[in-house]
């Protein structure tokens, strides 16, 4: 794009960089190495299956420098869809420039304009106090739920990633 940094939806041409960022994020935040083939399929499928969700990216001078993924969760209580923010990554050289804030503002704006969206949710590592502070500053509140899961694919065995 042409301006300094623009926030935009991702397209198929962005798949390689989203794969690279996702791998970098897993390594950086959880010390895990994602298998190339699976994460590539995972990113590609989301790009080609709009019903599952979407990515947005931040682009600076023709390069993608940050990403954010949204997936959907139906809420019968609210008769609407929650947008889940996941897979947030900002390239190291572009941190502390408010890129997450801009991506969040973009998402919030789109979500609020869409009458089928009932809210925005995300989960965060219990120990990531910096991220928690950012989310609170941007107006999100800690939910009163704990997150449980059974993971069929990525168990605790390192070679499964």
């Amino acid at each position, binding site marked *: *794009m042409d301006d300094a940094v623009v926030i*935009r939806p991702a*397209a198929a041409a962005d798949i390689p960089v989203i794969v690279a960022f996702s791998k970098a994020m897993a390594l950086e935040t959880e010390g895990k190495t994602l298998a190339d083939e699976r994460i590539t399929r995972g990113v590609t499928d989301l790009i*080609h299956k709009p019903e599952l969700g*979407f990515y947005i990216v931040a682009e600076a001078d*023709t390069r993608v420098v940050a990403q954010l993924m949204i997936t959907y969760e139906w809420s019968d209580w609210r008769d609407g869809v929650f947008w889940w923010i996941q897979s947030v990554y900002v390239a190291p050289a572009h941190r502390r420039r408010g890129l997450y804030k801009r991506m969040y503002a973009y998402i919030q704006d789109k979500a609020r304009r869409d009458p089928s969206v009932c809210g925005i949710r995300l989960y965060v590592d219990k120990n990531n106090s910096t991220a928690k502070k950012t989310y609170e500053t941007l107006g999100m509140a800690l939910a009163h739920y704990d997150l449980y899961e059974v993971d069929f694919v990525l168990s605790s065995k390192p070679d499964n990633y």
Partner: protein
Amino acid sequence: MKKKRILLMVLILAGVFAGCVYWPVTVKEMNFKSYAMDTGKVPVIYSDEYNISFYGLEALHPFDSKKYGKVHDYLIERNLLTADQFIEPGAPSREDLLIVHPESYLNALEQSSVVAELAEMGILSYFPSNLTKRKILKPMLYATGGTILAGQLAVRKGWAINLGGGYHHASAHQGGGFCIYADITLSIRYLMKHNPLISKVMIIDLDAHQGNGHERDFLNNDSVFIVDVYNKDIYPGDLEAKKAIDLKVEVPSGIDDIKYIQLLEFHLNEAFELFDPDIIYYNAGTDILEGDPLGRMKLSKIGILMRDEMVFRYAFERQIPIVMLLSGGYQKTNYEVIGNSIANLKKKFNLF
């Protein structure tokens, strides 16, 4: 012997000179000229003749009828192109138009009331026909020449952008919605007639409105594959023409960047799996921009840049020549969006 050499030199020099100063050209000449683009020209096609002015009355129309000139000036202001780098088209002759349009249709255009109706400017019917000819038909004729030229240049250069044209509501027998000459059909027919390498064409029509003109012209035609993404709630809702669409994507009013870009990616992917064209005609109407009173969609300026980039990427990755036409979208700021999009294409694909 020496005389012969001198004569040869003169001929070579004359040839080089002719290659440098061949603009503007008429459509007839286009078939025979060799477009040596090493003269510094780039295949961005424009003529001052495109712009429509009618003693200020054009202000009554919802369209910015001078957006073509504004895009041209904006590209120069931003130092993307110099004035002498644009390529200037000529106007097609009546004979050229007859490739597609019947005599009866061209004759009908002699009446200002017919032009008034097609251009959706009722007031024009009170003016003499020589005036509507000069002020309305002539600009559209030049832009039609631009689209024909764009087809020929794209084959040679891989791409061409006409800063006008895209009259996708006009068919051989019928105009409407500000469209009088069927420039897309004409350009395709011209190319297919004169270039044996072009036998399969894909039209990607991403103007907010259904492209019923070219659709009517290519009904039951397997050589032309039509992808049309349009707002289903607005003009023209032409059921007969819809039968010609090979990949129809009807979107709702108010669709935004995220949903639109996802849909486009999905369907372009599908289109190129189904059809392998020799050239692409991309009708890049900017009336999908938020705020457009006719398009009623909500794409942002960035969304338009992405859309154009995506279509060009699909073409270039497959090494298929692409023609881009401006078509609809006449808000006062559209020229900037179009200019920025051309700047983005230049940067991303090293266009020129």
